[in-house]
């Protein structure tokens, strides 16, 4: 390929109409409390992984809602299930099960398996 000295980055725009919501459906079926999240960020402020990497449960829940699978695949395995997020959540979201379901979904996607429980 010819090197023009610059590259074109992928579009940052989220195309909500075409993005797949399969991950949201997968997580929501097992853990409906994902709908309770109001993106306050208490979980990610309590999180050790979030303080040293760009892992953020607040953002991951939004990524799942918008169908941005790459964000989940890239960062969800940084969680070590300490559960501080669950303690911190003001709305009682079952954060650990959400992360576990996200990891399960991510594993299935990486293994080219169908997203089914």
């Amino acid at each position, binding site marked *: 390929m010819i090197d023009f000295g610059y590259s074109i980055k992928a579009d*940052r*725009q*989220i*195309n*909500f*109409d075409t993005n797949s919501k399969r991950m949201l459906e997968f997580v929501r079926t097992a853990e409906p409390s994902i*709908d*309770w999240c*109001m*993106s306050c960020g208490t979980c990610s402020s309590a999180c050790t992984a979030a303080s040293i990497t760009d892992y953020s449960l*607040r*953002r991951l829940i*939004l*990524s799942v*809602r*918008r169908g*941005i699978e790459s964000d989940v695949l890239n960062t969800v395995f940084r969680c070590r299930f300490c559960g501080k997020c669950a303690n911190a959540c003001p*709305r009682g979201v079952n954060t650990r099960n959400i992360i576990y379901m996200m990891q399960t979904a991510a594993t299935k996607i990486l293994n080219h398996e169908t997203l089914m429980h």
Partner: protein
Amino acid sequence: MEAAANLSRMGHTVTLIEKSSATGGRLNQWHALFPSRISPRPLLERLKSEISGNVNVILDAEVTGIEKNDDGYVVDMANNRMITADAILLTSGFDIFEAEKKEEYGYGIYENVITSVDLERIFNTGQPLLTVQGRKPSRIGFIHCVGSRDEKAGNFHCSKVCCVTAVKQAIEVKELIPSAEVFLFYMDLRMYGRHFEELYKDAQFKHGIQFIRARLSEAFENEDGTVQIRIEDTLLARPLKMSLDLLVLMVGIQAPKKKGNIIDLVGIQRDTDGFPKLDDPYGMPFRTGIPGIYCAGGITGPKTIDETLTEARAVASEIDAYLTGMPSFSNFESIVIGL
């Protein structure tokens, strides 16, 4: 009506002048009240029955001038009608932002863009909620703060009641069309009142309504009549586009228009937000600075029904004090609280 009924009960002769053909104002337009979602009809009936026979009601009357003379005030109306009064209470309410002014949102241009007032009207008719093409909408979006917190729209203030109204209407839409996806696009969610947060929680927990923090810059129409919106999903810091079958604009509350409004007719000063300037906004939030002239309800800013009714009773007691020469409670000067 509430103030009139209370003043009448205190023994005063009360005349209620109404511009339209029915008393009750905007309450007549609403289908259900937040946060309980009850119908406003029983309340309207109670208010009407309280004034019935006790208050002289003049309908379809437009006030053209108010003058002060030695005996009090002379209120002139169109068609050479006139009454005199010792005290005047202005309760002519607020204006609703005209969504056409926010041209980039497409109201009046794109057929599937409606306002929250239109939606309430559709609920009132009991007809199914359909797109202009006659389709059952599968994705509906609500845009908060249309004409509120927007200096370019001429209103920098918050209209206060639209957040909870959007949540209420979203739930109603979801109940009408359970299969629909419903999205609310907000800047801040101001669930300030009692039980408002519960309604917001219900919207998420029970109805799966989704909230996206964003402010719409511009809406477009697709060939099939759906509405394309482009926003920034600000919590992800990424732009987002999606198509909607129906776009509902949460139109804000604004000060009554300047030209020929009764506020200016009687010479009440306007405050920075356009609403009447109050000389004692904490102690007497209905006193105008002109002796004998009071304001209550939506005329002094966005208010809920219960706030308006409470204020009506409070202003009635203050007007009674004024008329009977009793010391006023204003500015806390003459208050005596139990020793």
